[in-house]
């Protein structure tokens, strides 16, 4: 779990993680909001159903896939927060596959 430091970075952007409202600093990502909200998991794996939270925060691992403003399978660590953004964990959904 992560904690904010309002002194250097005031929390000014309100977002919703699950149903809970939360303020985070400008420039944060949806994945940061999930970590700050203290969610136990952002998704469960489609294969074994194990819980995951962000691992790399830089777009490499795809462990942060979440539903953002109604769109599933978004890389939450690559999405900058906007006022009113809704970030929901996704359960079991298989992520979009790329290669044939």
């Amino acid at each position, binding site marked *: *779990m*992560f904690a904010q430091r309002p002194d*250097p*970075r005031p929390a000014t952007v309100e977002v919703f993680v699950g149903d809970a409202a939360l303020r985070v600093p400008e420039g944060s990502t949806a994945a*940061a909001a999930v970590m700050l909200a203290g969610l136990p998991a952002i998704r469960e794996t489609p294969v074994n159903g194990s819980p995951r*939270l962000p691992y*790399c925060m*830089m777009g*490499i691992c*795809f462990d942060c896939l979440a539903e953002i403003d109604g769109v599933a399978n978004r890389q939450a660590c690559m999405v900058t927060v906007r006022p009113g953004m809704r970030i929901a964990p996704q359960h079991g959904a298989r992520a979009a596959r790329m290669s044939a």
Partner: protein
Amino acid sequence: MTDLAIIGAGPAGLAAAIEAASLGLSVTVIDEQPAPGGQIFRNVERASSDPALAGEYGSDGAALVRRFRAAIQAGGIDYRASTTLWHLDTVGGVLSLRGESGTGSLVAQRVLLATGAQERPVPIPGWTLPNVLTAGAAQILLKQAGAVPRGRTVLAGQGPLLWLLADQLAKAGATPALLLETTPRGALRQALPAGLAGAGFWRGRAMLAKGATLMAASRRAGMRVISHVTGLRAEGEGRLQRITWDGGGSTEADTLLLHEGVIPSTHVSRALGLPHQWDETQLCWRPEVDAWGATPNPLLAVAGDGAGIGGWQAATATGALAALDAACRLGRLPEHARDSRAVPHRHLLRRMLALRPFLDRLYAPAPGVLAPADDDTIVCRCEEVTAGQVRAAAALGATGPNQAKAYLRTGMGPCQGRMCGTTVAAVIAQARGIPIAEAGALRPRAPFKPITVGELADLPAG
């Protein structure tokens, strides 16, 4: 149409853009981040005054980004933030981009990949548990959101970035409780000759001094250090609760931050079919480039950590060199002028690389980091494939990661093998008794990042 398209607004891409624009080239800079700075100077325009990030980030980083903004003002640079390169037609020089307002394309006469590095995967048992992150991830949370891990934080692994993070967290009021350092006994003695050769220690003395200061500071702040740790395991029910290691070591933890150095992000350069070499010293793949960053492909160059790990200052030098070469190739700069302008950049590059051979040897990842010994350890996080399964596939005839993909789906999940590719190659190489270079690198395909059918449909025809 742009003269030079630069992918990546990190130190390499920023230096390249500033140099190229000053030579009169039209430049387009594309980066998926919302602001310039790359990995090291991420979000620096908002966070440079955070006392926890004082030092290189707050001073040099902020200055570099200011120079880039000034160059944009002066004209010649089209900077596209929050934009991802997801396909590149290397014949026509057509870049397929996705930005906040949808997809689009751009034609460039030359393309510079300045896509940087990623952290080396650290596949230990339990590394997929919630609250196990990379050290870089914690640093990103600090830079982006000013956030710090709460509770008992343990760092594990090795390398300069780990000590830097420890110091930054300490300054942010969240000193890690413990560092489990994995550098083996005797590594320092073995690395010494590489530091003495070519006066590496002397030329890299400022860097050495900085490292020593960081180490002393985090210890002073109260971080305990246990050295020569092997057999790391993360354990817990549904989340990290405990870390154990060989010799009966065990500690409770709320957050575990792993780090075994950084490796070039070669996803895009491999997908483009560029030739890559296995670097025996840095133990990673790197694209083949000449002294200007040019690849064998007439359109493409690579600069910065994406071409081999050298750190941010080396990245600015290779970025500038690639820009000079682009101007020369496009007929805007005679060869002799390119060569003479290159001199200060080559000088900086040599100075910045002086300490690398020593650091690369000192912090070489243990064989168990490259290829986990424990059969139950997950190597492919997406498809939850274990080291044992990869070894079984090797026994059945998989000769490299491209074949393993057909047996196990490793590399077919959403990350397209960014996390598992190197580990799968190392496990197969070990099982078959062949060099990693022979097992080969995964050959990913475009799109480089997932793109929806709707976005594809939005593209203009032709």
